[in-house]
């Protein structure tokens, strides 16, 4: 009988007894860097991130992991997780009142907004990091995430801009602007579609801002009247174009990876990337044809940054900060920016770096197939408030997907 009592207790009571203690975020953030280093060394760190790109995975697994192990004895464990899935996990942990299994996460925009809504982030930790002095925090594309001042709550990690990707062998005259897009789509039926996910919503936001003729209308807090007017214009345009989309607009790819696959197979003429340099990455992988090219249509597309966050109830927040400090070091950022490694644009201000690093950043191998960064900087829209994204995502389903 005792066996059954033990089983019952094991199932119901004991897990609660072994639960690790929750730590006060204020106390964590009031430590000095030497204290953080002392407490963070030789700890495991659990990081969740998007694992959909072999180059990015290799950068993390073959470079960042061994480096933090060597420098701090940190065992960095990387798992898949992002967006709403991550938010759900953290919400469940909060409801259960238990410390998080996640110490740090790759986040941006809408996830930052959601994590702040549920108070799941540690707090303003970035100023504690020694390498934060190199960050380009004067840049509005880096210091503001979806119109929300970052304020140290998440640490900038990389900066990217939405780009259109096409095969120059089969498409010699890609539409140069959003204004040219409707005529092009009508003249080339079945070649264009919009993924029903993050990148797709970035296309819709850029298209809507381009339609308005004044992207500054979308700056600041969410404006219902602006959204109604310009999303209305967008739905009207998409409604007229729908029969000319891939599969006559009867369905849309649910993820970006299947759209990349359709592009690689030649079933569609265009795919997209939130990273303007991804085309180099995918060609180097042999996934896209060597004739693939990326460009930014006029008048521009959204440029944004991605960030690293420390979770509020993390079990190893100090170790997570050590990892993040390494990830924004000039050495790690330089390697990440190399198109043969990842091609993710740096968030460091080159002029703040030591002279040796300034030279190294400027002498990096240039992109071969992606647009030049300096050339597209003038065609960058700032991310509008998160509500534009959530509303577009909902209304895209109502106004476009479900009107078949």
């Amino acid at each position, binding site marked *: *009988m005792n066996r*059954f*009592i033990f*089983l*019952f207790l094991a*199932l*119901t009571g004991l897990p609660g007894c072994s639960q690790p203690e929750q730590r006060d975020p204020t106390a964590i953030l009031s430590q000095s860097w030497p204290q953080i280093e002392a407490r963070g060394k030789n700890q495991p760190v659990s990081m969740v991130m998007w694992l959909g790109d072999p180059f990015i995975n290799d950068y993390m697994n073959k470079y960042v992991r061994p480096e933090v192990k060597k420098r701090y004895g940190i065992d960095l464990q990387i798992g898949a997780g992002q*967006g*709403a*899935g991550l*938010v*759900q996990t953290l*919400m469940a942990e*909060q*409801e259960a009142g238990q410390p998080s299994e996640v110490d740090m996460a790759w986040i941006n925009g*809408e996830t930052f907004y*959601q994590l702040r*809504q*549920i108070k799941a982030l540690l707090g303003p930790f970035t100023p504690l990091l020694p390498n934060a002095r190199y960050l380009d925090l004067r840049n509005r594309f880096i210091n503001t995430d979806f119109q929300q001042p970052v304020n140290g709550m998440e640490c900038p990690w990389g900066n990217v801009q939405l780009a259109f990707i096409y095969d120059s062998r089969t498409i010699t005259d890609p539409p140069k602007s959003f204004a040219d897009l409707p005529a092009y789509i009508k003249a080339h039926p*079945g070649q264009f579609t919009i993924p*029903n996910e993050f990148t797709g*919503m970035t296309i819709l936001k850029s298209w809507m801002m381009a339609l308005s003729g004044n992207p500054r209308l979308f700056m600041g807090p969410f404006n219902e009247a602006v959204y109604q007017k310009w999303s209305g214009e967008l739905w009207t345009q998409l409604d007229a174009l729908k029969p000319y989309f891939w*599969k006559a607009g*009867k*369905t*849309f790819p*649910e993820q970006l990876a299947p759209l990349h696959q*359709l592009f690689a*197979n*030649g*079933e569609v003429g265009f795919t997209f990337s939130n990273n303007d340099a991804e085309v180099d990455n995918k060609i180097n992988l042999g996934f896209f044809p060597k004739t693939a090219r990326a460009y930014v249509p006029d008048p521009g597309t959204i440029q944004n940054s991605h960030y690293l966050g420390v979770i509020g109830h993390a079990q190893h927040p100090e170790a997570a900060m050590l990892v993040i400090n390494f990830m924004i070091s000039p050495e790690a950022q330089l390697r990440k920016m190399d198109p043969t490694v990842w091609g993710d644009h740096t968030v460091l201000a080159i002029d703040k770096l030591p002279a040796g690093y300034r030279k190294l950043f400027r002498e990096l191998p240039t992109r071969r197939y992606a647009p030049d960064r300096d050339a597209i900087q003038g065609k960058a829209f700032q991310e509008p408030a*998160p509500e534009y*994204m*959530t*509303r577009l*995502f*909902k209304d895209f*389903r*109502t106004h476009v*997907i*479900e009107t*078949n």
Partner: protein
Amino acid sequence: MSSKQTNTLLLTVYALLVVGLPLMGLGTALLSSLGVAGPLARGFTTQYWQQLGAGGGLFSSLLYSLYITLVSLGLSVGIALALVLAGGSTLNRQPFPTLLYVPLLVPSLVMGFYLFQLLSRAGWLSRITYQLGLTSRIEAFPELVQDAAGTGIILAQILMAFPFFTLLFRTLYTDARLDELRNLTKTLGASDRQFRQRVAIPVLLRRASPTLVLFGVASMGAYDIPLLLGRTYPQMVSIFVTDRLSRFDLQEIPVGYGAGFLVAVLMMGSIGWLARTAQNYAL
């Protein structure tokens, strides 16, 4: 402790695991959908249920899931019955019985990817037909995945289900001594066709009905295959619910919980009713 007390404790643990935990999950989903549980809860509200009812998407999803389930289940059962009743002794000879296990070992996600590669317009079949000169351009190949009729989903479900049903019917055929019954019906003047239609098929279907019901429920809740091979609209219920739970707007999550609760209750009710009906007709 007496054996009666031991049994009571065991039953309690069993009930906690089998009934208690799922019901707690359902209860949490219901409370979340009413705005009284969850980190974003702001007090009792019916707004999420109103949102759920306003769209009509859940109803379309339920109908679409029912259609996919009935067609794939019906065709799988039809193929399996035909193999068992017409294949007869051939089906019992190696390697056929072993081969039937092969599709059962393939995970649904792998089956989905395989069919996508095979049947999409830029897939292997399309390329073969193009090379053979049967199609002149990519659009000439018929839409077999992400199509309105759910052909890809149905095909995948059939490929995964019919080997299982064939093995099941073969075992039931032997257990029910249908060969002996066939001889008996023949001595009474029945033809092979009459034996199959009036005796074998009813016996096999009735004996297999609990399994068929469970398989139908599993098909209705399928996720991987419809995610890969289905359209963005209409969606099967599992995709519909997951989509609501993982949207960018956190205010959509209670709507997802409401949809999940409703689907779970409908499924449980259907299983209960079908299981009772099946039991009444079981031989």
